[in-house]
């Protein structure tokens, strides 16, 4: 019985963490697929959601509304950064775009330091997130199950969007051959704006559950999610949407495996282990795990 419980808990941990990682990676690869932009400002979308929640805390709003507002702020931030910073450099080299995103990231972090505070701030969380279930003699936080549910729902919704709507078809086409898509009359700005909005939506949603784990927000909070998104995307093969999702789950699996099975002396190095393993994967398969057609 004990073993079943352990396996179950491990599985739920991996799935819940992996779901967040997958959503995160998806938001990044959408942008990359269309624009070839490695968006360093992506992690900050989580940061702004966190600060929104913090700033809304004193208000009498129910948490759900605050959460929705936080996600909206992520979407708005994503859209605005595209409009103001990325669009003017779109015609330039990919390197220029990448450096711009890094500058935007730094700017947003320091804006948080400047206009809110450099110190950590507590993020309000709903009652629901404190509920803990007991399954097979193991304690499972309810929010992990909710995370899995919400992520699967979002992924399904997203898949539906891509498959059934004209916009979705256009997005897929744009990720494949951007210029040709424009030559069919589909406006570049619409595609790109939509892609950024979607990435904002995904990051915002991840943020809600992310803060469920950490409970507080700092200006640098976006770094780890960004890394996760990066590495998941690279594992999955940078061009593939499915690959990014799979990469997210794989990364969570690797991370949980190292967390559970590394000897105590090496446990504190688990980040190094995880990434070194990823680098190894890249050595033998630079194109990532998902084979591109």
């Amino acid at each position: 019985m004990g073993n079943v419980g352990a396996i179950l808990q491990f599985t739920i941990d991996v799935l819940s963490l992996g779901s967040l990682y997958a959503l995160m990676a998806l938001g990044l690869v959408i942008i990359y697929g269309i624009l070839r932009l490695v968006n360093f400002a992506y992690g900050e979308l989580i940061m702004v959601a966190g600060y929104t929640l913090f700033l809304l805390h004193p208000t009498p709003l129910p948490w759900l509304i605050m959460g929705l507002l936080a996600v909206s702020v992520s979407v708005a931030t994503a859209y605005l950064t595209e409009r103001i910073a990325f669009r003017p450099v779109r015609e330039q080299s990919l390197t220029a775009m990448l450096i711009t995103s890094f500058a935007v990231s730094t700017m947003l972090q320091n804006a948080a330091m400047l206009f809110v505070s450099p110190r950590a701030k507590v993020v309000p969380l709903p009652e629901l997130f404190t509920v803990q279930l007991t399954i097979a003699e193991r304690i499972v936080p309810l929010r992990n199950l909710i995370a899995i549910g919400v992520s699967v729902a979002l992924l399904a919704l997203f898949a539906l969007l891509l498959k059934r709507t004209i916009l979705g078809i256009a997005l897929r086409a744009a990720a494949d051959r951007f210029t040709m898509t424009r030559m069919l009359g589909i406006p570049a700005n619409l595609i790109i704006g939509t892609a950024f909005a979607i990435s904002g939506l995904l990051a915002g949603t991840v943020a809600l559950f992310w803060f469920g784990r950490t409970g507080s927000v700092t200006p640098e909070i976006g770094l780890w999610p960004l890394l996760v998104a990066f590495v998941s995307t690279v594992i999955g093969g940078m061009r593939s949407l499915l690959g990014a999702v799979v990469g997210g789950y794989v990364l969570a699996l690797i991370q949980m495996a190292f967390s559970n099975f590394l000897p105590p002396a090496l446990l504190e190095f688990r980040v190094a282990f995880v990434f070194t393993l990823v680098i190894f994967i890249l050595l033998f398969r630079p194109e990532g795990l998902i084979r591109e057609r």
Partner: protein
Amino acid sequence: MNALRQLEKSAVLNTSIALLIPLIVLAGLVELSGDLLLERIVTVMFIHLILVTGLQIFMGNSGIVSFAHIGFMGIGAYATVLFSLDPEVKAMTLRHLYEFLKPVHLPFWGALLIGTGIGTVVAAIISYPLMRLHDAAAVITSFAVLVVIHDIIVHWSEVTNGPRTLFGVERETFLWNASLCAMVGLVFAVWFRESKAGMQLRASRDDRMAAQAVGVNMLAVRWLGFVLMCGYAAFAGGLFAHFITSFQPGQFYLAEVFVVLAMLVIGGPGSVSGAVVGTVLVTLLREGLRAGEAQMNLMQLFGGQVVGLTEFLLAISMIAILILRPGGLMQGRELRLPLGSVTAARRPL
């Protein structure tokens, strides 16, 4: 007359002198002024110059953005200090150090060389297999390498004192040796840019297929550029450690990456002159802003501490340059002595 003719002909000589003269004058003036604060600022500036020049060697020529080099700055710093610390001080500051490292003690330059060597060798080993990755994956991986190095430094307490400050380092870096090293590094970078390897690196950026078609070994040439960059960074790390005399891992992480990148981007990554111009300008900007920030805090202008204003404005400046003047201030051109000869136009980044 012959000397002047030679100056016109040799781009390397010409640019080197054009860059060195103002720097020597600057260093000389500061040294003569005896102002300690100024000396500190300009010494740090020269250390930054080494970092930015190293970055220029790789990124300016290959077009690939790197984040990893600052990690190697950290390795250089910690490795140098391991050997340069007086054993008594070492016992106090690195209490859990491995036995075999405890008695090791080298004079400053020896330790610096070893520290740089270690950083360079590690860079060489790690990076060679990574050169195969295409551009986006390469950038992300360099970012991951930075994180890994930082993580290891933070947790390997035996060797680094972990996240805590490592103190007790002797002040060995002064204006004269920092500026000297920076200037040597500059000249090499100028030479490299015009050398066969440097041109091959630039060729591989501009047209990969064509470069391979004429026999450029892309992997090797990129690797060389990367290792050089990390060597510069490790050296700068060692110098920095002996300037600031106490430090912690956070100083070799993203904040530093940003500053160095800002210096190169604002000056213009396409040329060594861009590296110099950017470093000088950004140093001025930062010091000015920092003084302003201090004043504001003193006067309690915003009812509390103002933090992050310098970086915030620096980031905005960087974005502005990228939008309005993508090649940076120098637009990829090298400075030339005003001999009335033709300035060769180089392509911006």
